[in-house]
């Protein structure tokens, strides 16, 4: 259940980060991604990750438990990337491994911050209003997202229903087969529910050709611009520090 339920963690309500428009946050993520993809050194990644960690409380993630629940898959991935690179590289330099692991964290943490601090409805509103993302896509995805917690609840019912039929996972192979069977059953159910939902949305005039309005609206303010500017400044400082310390190592040159 652990892996399944971590998908269902919704946004924390009323966080400071939620006051930044989602498209400003996405722009900042683009800046960070671009910088981290151009270099593989430890200094740039460390500075960026440090700045990101400072934003955790702003996204409502204050207790170590909350942070852990949302980041453990990411930390696991980063640790294995670092470890594999140290073990497989010729000189076994732990600094290279640390740099690569920090880079993974630096690339993924903004996504965690966005999901934790931002209401998906505001994200869809902002994307459709400012970036002209098609409403069919944005609100369709939103409706689908609402079904995820239902799926989590159903996972347990289907597992118990199988035990009631005499099917359970006693051996590792049986367990894998059981899990695959449950996931398949959930997918079948999700497709059926999804098509009923599509009918209900159609019946309420969704995507009927009339230009859609937005009842909530989405406003870009000065603070959104400042947020992106601050991100650019932090990234510039990280690169500068990296070059000055001699750690700078672009990823696309030999």
């Amino acid at each position: 259940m652990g892996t399944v339920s971590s998908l269902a963690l919704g946004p924390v309500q009323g966080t400071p980060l939620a006051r930044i428009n989602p498209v400003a946050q996405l722009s900042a993520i683009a800046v960070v991604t671009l910088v981290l993809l151009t270099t593989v050194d430890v200094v740039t990644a460390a500075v960026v990750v440090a700045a990101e960690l400072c934003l955790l409380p702003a996204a409502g993630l204050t207790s170590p438990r909350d942070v852990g629940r949302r980041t453990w898959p990411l930390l696991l991935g980063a640790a294995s990337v670092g470890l594999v690179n140290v073990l497989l590289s010729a000189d076994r330099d732990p600094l290279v491994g640390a740099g690569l692991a920090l880079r993974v964290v630096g690339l993924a943490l903004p996504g965690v911050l966005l999901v934790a601090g931002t209401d998906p409805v505001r994200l869809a509103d902002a994307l459709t209003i400012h970036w002209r993302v098609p409403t069919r896509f944005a609100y369709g995805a939103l409706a689908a997202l609402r079904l995820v917690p239902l799926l989590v609840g159903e996972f347990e019912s289907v597992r118990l229903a199988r035990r009631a039929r005499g099917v359970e996972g006693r051996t590792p192979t049986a367990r894998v087969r059981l899990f695959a069977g449950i996931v398949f059953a959930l997918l079948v159910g999700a497709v059926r529910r999804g098509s009923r939902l599509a009918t209900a949305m159609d019946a309420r005039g969704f995507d009927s050709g009339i230009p859609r309005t937005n009842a909530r609206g989405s406003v870009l303010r000065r603070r959104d611009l400042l947020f992106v500017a601050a991100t650019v400044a932090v990234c510039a400082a990280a690169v500068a520090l990296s070059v000055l310390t001699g750690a700078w190592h672009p990823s696309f040159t030999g």
Partner: protein
Amino acid sequence: MTGVDLVVEPGERILLTGASGAGKSTLLAALAGLLGTEGAEIAGELTVDGGPPAAARGRLGMLAQDPDSQLVMARVGDDVAFGLENAGLRPDEIWPRVDDALAAVGFPYGRDRPTQALSGGEKQRLVLAGVLARRPGLLLLDEPTAQLDPPGAALVRAAVVRVTADRSATTIVVDHDAEPWLPLVDRVVEVVPGGLVEHGPDWRPIGRTAGLRLPPAAPGPVLLTADGAGFTYRGADVAALPPTTVTLRGGRALAVTGPNGAGKSTLALLLAGLRAPTIGRVEVAADLAGGVRRGHREPHRWRAGELVTRIGTVFQHPEQQFLTGRLRDELALGPLRSGEHAAAARATAEELLERLGLAAYADANPFTLSGGQQRRLSVATALATAPRVLVLDEPTFGQDAATWRELVTLLAEQRARGCAVAVVTHDADLVTTFADERIAL
């Protein structure tokens, strides 16, 4: 369906009733302009507002059974606003209409309430508000209370009456359970093979319990006892089921009743050996546990293969329990899992198919059956391993009068052969005709 002649005047409230499979839903889908015409033979003409139904879809409002597949947004106000945004209304026009629609259905919470925190009846009223805010000229309600408990259903019916009081919308309700709608509609039309029958104002449906004779059963030994058993989800403050004591006895039927959220289904899972109680114990008689490796343990620790021949469970949603692609295989699965030989398992399956009138579908996929047939199949899969304890969650949900009688008779036959039966139910008829004992949570 054939031979349908019906004229509905603007502002009328009509109930469309009839047995499962009579074609009610087909007619409704045709009115909504949703009927696929591939591979269909079509005769006659159907018009809405004088034109084809698809052309009138902007003026149509629809309410279906399952509220969870009709809600779009995560917050109440946003969900009602969804249909108005689609219609291209300005934001300053939208919010007053949202508030009006919520008030009209008697919705007790504000716009910011998360839809996930609502009960089934509240969700269904919210869907109705979302439909209503678009000011439809034709309101189609497809068994809108089928998945609700009786108080929730009554509130939804009251909301329908309130919102149609000014007769600005023509209302067509489809429901095989006609009785509760009778005082609320102008006309009743029954779909029967070959056409429609219109009923007068004094018409009452024949009660499904009328003349029902169930086989007698003699009380047997105690088979299973929940001794102060309760359940609390990890991290939850409130128990899903407070400590409860019940006894299941051979040849006796126990009904578990109570409002949604009282823990009825949780109690069923404990009795069925599917969940471990977090407090108290579930004790099994030595007689029932005979042959189980470590049978002195509580049933949730038994192997699944040992459980199926002793305690059979039928879940509320039958499709969650189906595992194979053919009815025949579905019925043979339990016996095979409990270690029976393939030939014996096949024979059991054939016999059950015959008895439940499903032999014609032996090679069909369980998912293609109608709701009533799926329900009978799920009961049959539990019977295939001849368990001495049967636990059923809402077995009569959504059944029309005929399948209801078949199902209750089938359960009474199990009781007569000495089986202990526990049913979780909202169905008052089931409690009065079938249950020997009752516990209200």
